[in-house]
């Protein structure tokens, strides 16, 4: 409820409505935690469990044995390196290509602009997996199957969505008059971009970068389709652990490990931009 509305409502209903709002809030929060946190807690417990036999509510023995096991495995190291460098390279390349492109889409008028822009959309209108299969057959001919750079290339395609749409709308939302006012005050076009435009789109761009990184990091189907069997990312390794070895703890430990990079990134973005700005950027 907005402030003026509250003020109109008077003191009596004020307390009541706040209570009602809180009640709804608590319910929603409780339901959310139930759905989100229960599996998470379960995974977290499993990761530190050494023995947990059926009827017991809590494990019989906690410990770090499986952490040692998982972390000492060569394939885990390799997969971690692969996943991190894949995500980093794809994000960097995507930013390099898409950010200037999104500025052009938002600000410049050139022949075929709308057609070009719509083509980004249509890629997402196709059933994704069908599209990937088609690309995979092309890649097969080019020898890009089972190749790290083949995976980079196809991941790049799937990041266009975040890296073009979000920044384009952000650039479009920057008030042109503000840029003109900066020119008026004596700033060169480059300086205007640096001091006026960029600070205003930075939250949205950070959000786009974050989404791209996290999405690439966790992506499985394309990585599997194009990369298998040579290129093995952490999620793929996890799938194999679960399929072949049936040690729950391996999966749980890897899940927690996977969770670390995205959590660190999210914290960084939050730290530098504030949750509010991030929300606004994604809402824009």
């Amino acid at each position, binding site marked *: 409820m907005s402030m003026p509305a509250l003020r109109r409502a008077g003191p009596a209903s004020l307390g009541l409505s706040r209570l009602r709002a809180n009640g709804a809030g608590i319910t929603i929060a409780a339901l959310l935690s139930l759905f989100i946190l229960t599996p998470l807690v379960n995974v977290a417990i499993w990761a530190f469990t050494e023995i947990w036999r059926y009827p017991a509510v809590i494990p019989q023995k906690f410990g770090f044995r499986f952490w040692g096991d998982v972390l000492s495995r060569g394939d885990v190291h390799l997969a971690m390196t692969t996943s991190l460098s894949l995500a980093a390279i794809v994000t960097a390349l995507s930013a390099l290509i898409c950010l200037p492109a999104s500025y052009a889409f938002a600000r410049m008028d050139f022949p075929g602009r709308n057609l070009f822009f719509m083509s980004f959309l249509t890629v997402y209108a196709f059933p994704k997996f069908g599209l990937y299969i088609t690309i995979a057959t092309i890649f097969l001919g080019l020898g890009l199957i089972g190749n790290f750079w083949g995976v980079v290339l196809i991941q790049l395609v799937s990041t266009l969505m975040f890296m073009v749409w979000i920044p384009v709308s952000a650039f479009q939302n920057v008030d042109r*008059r503000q840029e*003109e006012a900066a020119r008026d005050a004596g700033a060169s076009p480059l300086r205007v971009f640096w001091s006026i435009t960029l600070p205003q789109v930075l939250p949205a761009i950070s959000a786009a970068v974050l989404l791209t990184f996290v999405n690439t990091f966790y992506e499985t189907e394309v990585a599997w389709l194009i990369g298998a069997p040579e290129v093995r990312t952490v999620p793929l390794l996890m799938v194999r652990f679960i399929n072949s070895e049936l040690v729950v703890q391996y999966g749980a430990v890897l899940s927690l490990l996977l969770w670390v990079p995205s959590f660190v990134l999210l914290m960084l973005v939050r730290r530098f931009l504030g949750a509010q700005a991030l929300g606004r950027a994604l809402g824009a």
Partner: protein
Amino acid sequence: MATLEIKNLSRLFGNTCAVDDLSLTIGDGELVCLLGPSGSGKSTVLRMIGGFEEPTAGAILIDGQDVTRVPPERRPTGMVFQSHALWTHMNVFANVAFGLKLRRLPKDEIRRRVNGSLATVGLEGYGERKTSQLSGGQQQRVALARSLVLEPKILLLDEPFASLDQHLRERLREEVREIQRRVGITMIFVTHGQDEALAIADRIAVMRDGRLEQLSRPDRLYRQPQTEFVAGFVGQMNLLQGAIRSNVMSVAGIDLPVALADGPATLALRPEDIALEKRGDDGGADVMRVTDFGTHLSIEVRTRCRQRLKIMAPPGTGWSAGMRATLSARKFSVYRDGKLCFMPQPCDVRPAAAA
């Protein structure tokens, strides 16, 4: 301190002609108001002077130098935008300081000048506020301070006081006028407020459909409107369609001697130039409504030919609705084809005979 010369300036947007062959010369330290209905091209003129809009044709000269193709950052102009255009990611202080920082002034001086400028617009102590935490009027004042602090040679103001209350508007208007006199800035001021224009302008340019209708001193603009449009646009005016026959224009029950060829014409009468006389019989007009403004009465009458007129009378003259009156004109002008074609010199004016 600069002179501004605009030569045959035009700007097309697709098929609409926002500015049409406009020529205007503004002297050093002069304050010119642009007046005109919405969409008449005032902002477009200002934006072309500031360098934000490229003219389709024509030239702009500042101090004799052609700046038509010079980018805004290298023009000695400053602009206060119609929409404030404050930088929303900076606080008030940073907004005002931005241009000074670009000029690489020492920190102390920046602080001193920013605070001085904020004080001028009555916003001392607001430096740390975010722009979103300001009222509309406060935002406008920050925009004004931001431009003033750079002391441009030519200041362009696009309705800078639109969202201010009457008192603040008058105070800031005086403040701007004062700065303008002290620093000698040449100013172009777009406004919808005629009172504002009449109060502060050295000269007023009235625009219509991208063209300049009239450029004159405020008193002349009011007393001698050169076109029918200006006559109707500036101040209150009764415009009455009529005809001239044998050198007499008779309209609204008034006969006026007019030395013009026969034919249709428009008579323009200011409310304060019409004299009312009480009459019991059926002559003249019916008083429809009387509003007492304290300083004067505003009287609406309807003539026998069903034409409505606004008339201004001294207070306490005892007029009320339902009375009958005869009208006579102390001063009038006649327009034909939209142009002024007859205006008796003040000494020529004789009380016109009643009908």
